[in-house]
């Protein structure tokens, strides 16, 4: 009985002492309008990866998430605090998934920022929540113009403060393909096939607009459905417009079927074929029928580029990736996610105040730091405009001359476009 009372007394005194220590030390900084996150001594700084890691788009989301993992490893600690990304969250590549995942994120008050989403549809539903909660989200692969701005100073319908991205804005890619086709290749009549995906539909529409603005004609604008295998009908529909080029930003396997079956369609023998970054993957580039295809996409010649914050180059990253995960990345946006992660960590570092080992990170401060950020990433120079477009807007077009050597094909740049 006596001993118990004794221990209670000791515990009480200890608690008092702790309170005294906390009060007696330096004052914590005043929180900004969005509040601040307090990270106790020895605790980890919480960020999250929020990518499409399941389902048919996981070939895009998984390299994104691994990019985040490797960037956290390379960046090291921030003012003595380790960084944790917890369990990778899944955006399910859908609005439903985006909203629910965002709910998971904002319900944890320790999370400062998010790297994701993989899909634009998910970002649109996630951002209202993320923005309201004062968090930031940086995406490595959202390209929808609706998420940022028209690049001429007008915010788009789904823009919310706190949204940033290192991927390019699709307004450019559509324009880049149109200019390449019209000016470089002399194309005047184009057929377009999308697959009903938000992304391919947006890019196809952007291309159509830009191509027609230049004076070209889009004779047939049509679509297949995901899961279709027989492309005879759609290609016949395209052939009926007697185009001299076909633009199709579809994903494998649909684009594989298109490439394999186009040879048997009368009138499509000499048509120039252009795909986009969705098909800039080994799975398509290596089939024999992919020879001669053009692909627009982000500049993927980042081998020698170094991230100025970690000193890691594209080649270093790839070898680390392969030794860790036993395979090469299946989509090119790992670099964008890697740079996005270092951006976020740098912004946290810049806006953090250390008070006796406890870190205070001001949420508004993180946004300010991101708005002002300037660094060299694997993807090239990174600075953010007023609506969160931070990446290099350089679009390249490659021509696949060597399906047997995919790496060489990816390096074979025939056109560059910078707005």
């Amino acid at each position, binding site marked *: 009985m006596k001993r118990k009372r004794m221990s209670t007394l000791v515990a009480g005194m200890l608690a008092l002492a702790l309170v005294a220590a906390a009060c007696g030390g330096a004052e914590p900084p005043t929180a900004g309008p969005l509040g601040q996150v307090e990270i106790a001594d020895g605790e980890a700084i919480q960020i999250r990866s929020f990518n499409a*890691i*399941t*389902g048919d788009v*996981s070939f895009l989301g998984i390299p994104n998430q691994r990019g985040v993992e490797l960037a956290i490893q390379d960046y090291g600690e921030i003012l003595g605090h380790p960084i*944790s990304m*917890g*369990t990778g*969250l*899944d955006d*399910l590549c*859908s*609005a*439903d*998934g985006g*909203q*629910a*995942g965002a*709910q*998971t994120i*904002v*319900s*944890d*008050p320790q999370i400062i920022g998010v790297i994701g989403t993989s899909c634009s*549809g998910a970002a*649109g*539903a996630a951002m*209202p*929540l993320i923005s*309201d909660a004062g968090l930031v989200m940086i995406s490595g692969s959202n390209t929808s113009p*609706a998420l940022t701005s028209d690049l001429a100073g007008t915010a788009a*319908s*789904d823009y919310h403060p706190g949204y940033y991205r290192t991927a390019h804005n699709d307004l450019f890619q559509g324009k880049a393909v149109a200019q390449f086709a019209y000016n470089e290749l002399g194309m005047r009549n184009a057929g377009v096939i*999308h697959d*009903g*995906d*938000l992304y*391919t*539909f*947006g890019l196809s529409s952007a291309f159509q607009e830009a191509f027609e603005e230049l004076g070209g004609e889009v004779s047939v*604008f*049509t*679509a297949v*459905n995901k899961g279709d295998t027989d492309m005879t009908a759609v290609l016949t529909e395209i052939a009926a417009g007697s185009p001299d080029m076909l633009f199709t930003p579809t994903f494998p396997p649909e684009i594989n079927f298109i490439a394999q079956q186009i040879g048997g369609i009368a009138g499509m023998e000499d048509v120039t074929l252009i795909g986009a970054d969705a098909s800039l993957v080994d799975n398509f580039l290596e089939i024999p029928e992919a020879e001669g295809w053009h692909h627009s996409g982000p500049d993927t010649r980042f081998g020698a580029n170094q991230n100025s914050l970690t000193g890691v180059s594209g080649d270093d990253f790839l070898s680390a990736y392969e030794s860790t995960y*036993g395979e090469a990345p299946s989509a090119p946006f790992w670099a964008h996610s890697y740079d996005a992660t270092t951006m976020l960590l740098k912004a946290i570092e810049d806006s953090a105040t250390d008070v006796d080992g406890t870190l205070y990170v001001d949420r508004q401060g993180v946004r300010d730091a991101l708005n002002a950020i300037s660094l060299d990433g694997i993807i090239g120079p990174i600075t953010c405009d007023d609506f969160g477009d931070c990446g290099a807007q350089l679009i390249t077009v490659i021509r696949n001359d060597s399906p047997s050597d995919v790496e060489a094909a990816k390096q074979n740049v025939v056109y560059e476009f910078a707005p």
Partner: protein
Amino acid sequence: MTNGQLDWRKVIRTGLLVGVVMVFTSAIGMVEDFDERPVVVGILSLGFLALFWYVPRAAYKVGDEEVLEGMEVHPPTFQNVIAGAAVGAIGGVVLSVLVFAVNALDLRGVFVRLSPQLVKTLTFSESAADPNLAGVLVLILISTVLGAVGGGLHLVSDKLRRQIVFTVGAVVVVALLEDVISQILRTFGLSALVRAIYRDAALRLIPAIVVAALGFFVGGRERGGESRIRAYLADPDPTQRTRKSLFVAGVVLVIVLVAPWVLGSLLSEILATTGIFLLMGLGLNIVVGFAGLLDLGYVAFFAVGAYTSAVLTSPLSPFFNPEWPWWYTLPVVIVIGAISGIFVGTPVIRLRGDYLAIVTLGFGEIVRITFLSDAAAPWFGGAGGIRNIPGIPLGFDTISGSDPEYIMYFAAALVVLAAWVSYALLNSRVGRAWTAMREDESVAEVMGIDTVRSKLSAFVVGAILASLGGALFSAKLGSIFPTSFELLISIVILVIVIVGGMGNILGVAAGAVVLIGVLGGPRQPGLLQEFGEFKLLIYGVILVYMMLQRPEGLIPNIRRSRELHHEELSQDAWLGATPSEDTAGEGAPA
């Protein structure tokens, strides 16, 4: 184990099955992926839980005796332990064969997850260079011990066995529900406690022991809660029974109303989604469970409701955008929902059960593809969907997906409405007509029931409920895309109805909670987000298991359950009330 002797053939067969299950779990990458998720810090990962859970279970089962009337019952002996250990050992050996095979041959050309990385995980070694023989032995040893433990469970008292199961279960559940538990604790300002219990989402050792002890204690208490409720609900008098069901539902409702403010926004979100699926489940229950019409395209009505509401409220609706407040759209949603119900219902009204299934499935796809198509894009936005849907204006605020607590209230209100409609209809003239029609349509018709009107009314009521769900869904999401309305949703709703217990309102609720709330829907996360990509695989296993073990559903309709366990099951002939002989007759190959 007839005559108390070991049935070695059964032991070997079970052991091989255990081995196959473990190899399969490894080969699909579950062990490796789940290994990242610790359950108890430094002791157990979810990966090894997934790998080994089946060992003690199978080892226990192998000692089960089929007790028939008049047979001599043998008391369990130490042989149970030996049999269990043997089962575990055989399984472990099969698994270690896999380890060596992966090392000797490169199987990744076919089985992508059989990588050196897996061997590393399985053999507890740092490098994958050579098979760690000690690691393999440990693997077999663990498996054997777990098998022996499983077999040994026969030797202990029923009470102690239950306590052991509860102990393990409590630890796993508390670790897996980390998200929820820590959020509840935070609501009460106990952030420090969260840190004391969990590290990296896993239980720390001391709290794990405390939780285990609690589980042990709870497991030791006399069971009865569940069976008492069951007994309470199983009143032989039908009106009493429904009244009692309603009472239980009311209690659940009160809990649900208080819940969001205690559970936090994440759980409210999950509850809101569950509510929307439950609403659709209740609607489909009217069509399938009451009227016996197998509708595989139910998502079409959900889509129609969502798009109607979106077009009328969103400023970005491409063709027609009156920007009404959400409330005003409800009558329109109801009317259009009813019309679409009639439109789908009339052509299929003369079709037999399975023809009905594929035609409704077709209608579901037609609706989805139409909303998706470029042809209809000038009206509905095509693949770009309709964005900037403003949410529900409530005077003081506009409720959208950012306020899952309020969305949950709306979902709960609609669910109550649907439950009330179901209840009222079932006990009305229409409901009796449905029952008669489900049992035998011809007889029903001769008895003077207007089957056309009955069928159509089921379609219309179902369609209205689903389209109301769609209207709420669009306000919640803020933007809708055709991808939200795929065929899989129709199938999942049907599964909710049947796994829960067809024809029973509480059953459907149980189905929705388990399948959507806990596991998560095809594009909706549930409580157990850990299962992530393996969700649909687990769904499949649960479905098959449920149908084989408990075909009447979680909370069965008393009447249907009686039918199912009746000898002349085949006479029930669920759909279209066609006796099975006739079915076979018209299905003769040409």
